[in-house]
């Protein structure tokens, strides 16, 4: 039997009505299997959405995670903190899936060791940072705003410079968070080659 015939045979089985199994079994069984599949899929997805998962690779643990630690997003007076996915993965489902598909490139990078040494990481740092700046710029700093809600900002509780900028440039939408707040959670790369520091 040729390959073509085999495939055609399978196609016929798929498209013809079932001979022995009842419709009820097939629909109900399919439904229940679907629940299990979805539960498993979501659990796996969420498992990759934790800081523990991110820092299980030395590329993240030894470079960017160490840099996060002294910043306000890791240690601060109230103890509320952001983990990697809070800023780097969109919370909205469709965007999240899109980002996760993009992240398959990162799996590729991990397998082939694109940034597996400190030197390689530093060489790629500007490009990697620019991806993140571009993402936050084009979604109006959505991941910042998931916590830092503009409506809830009390300017009178801010320092004068913060008040001045937030009540003008940010309020008018002329600027978005990332325009000024680059390098707040990780060290900046050599910015001489970066457009518009």
């Amino acid at each position: 039997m040729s390959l073509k015939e085999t495939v055609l045979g399978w196609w016929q089985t798929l498209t013809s009505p079932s001979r022995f199994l009842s419709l009820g079994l097939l629909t109900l069984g399919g439904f229940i299997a679907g629940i299990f599949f979805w539960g498993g899929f979501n659990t796996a997805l969420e498992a990759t959405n934790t800081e523990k998962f991110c820092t299980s690779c030395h590329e993240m643990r030894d470079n960017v995670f160490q840099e996060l630690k002294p910043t306000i997003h890791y240690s601060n007076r109230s103890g509320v903190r952001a983990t990697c996915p809070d800023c780097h993965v969109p919370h909205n489902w469709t965007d999240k899936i899109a980002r996760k598909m993009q992240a398959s490139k990162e799996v590729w990078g991990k397998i082939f060791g694109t940034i597996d040494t400190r030197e390689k990481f530093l060489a790629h740092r500007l490009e990697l940072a620019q991806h993140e700046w571009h993402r936050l710029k084009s979604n109006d700093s959505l991941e910042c705003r998931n916590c830092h809600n503009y409506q809830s900002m009390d300017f009178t509780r801010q320092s004068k410079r913060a008040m001045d900028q937030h009540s003008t440039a940010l309020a008018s939408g002329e600027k978005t968070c990332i325009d000024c707040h680059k390098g707040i959670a990780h060290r900046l790369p050599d910015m001489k080659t970066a457009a518009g520091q």
Partner: protein
Amino acid sequence: MNRFALALAGLAFVGVAAAQTSPGLVNGLRGPTPLEDEAKPPVFPKIVNDDQRKARNYPMQPPLIPHQTDNYQLDLNFNKCMSCHGRSRVEESNAPMVSVTHYQDRDGNMRAEISPRRYFCLQCHVVQTDAKVPVKNSFEDFYKVEAAAKKGKPK
């Protein structure tokens, strides 16, 4: 007479030594902790963050920084200060521009970017805290001294 002076000096020395070891002595920096113990470090003072420019205490004093600079990156890769105080940024930020002298290299040539010898801002410009001064400073600037001299009071 000579012996009396010596005895007096000896007494004074003993007195000073006793004062130094007495636990009640409040030394500006150590506090009342005896010398053989380690002093409890004070809590970190708060950094003044009111954005109000301070007068210089003497003409050549580098202006003080009236805001927090925590986690501002200032290294080979990036100078955070210049993203507000740089020449091309002051219009947007309303921050005082870095002095033109800071664009001059040591040979007096004007450069487009801040001179390498002036790059590390925090070497001269510092933040202020609300810490209590352990040692009082009696420094008075020129204007005060001059005004006092004109009034005829030796100050």
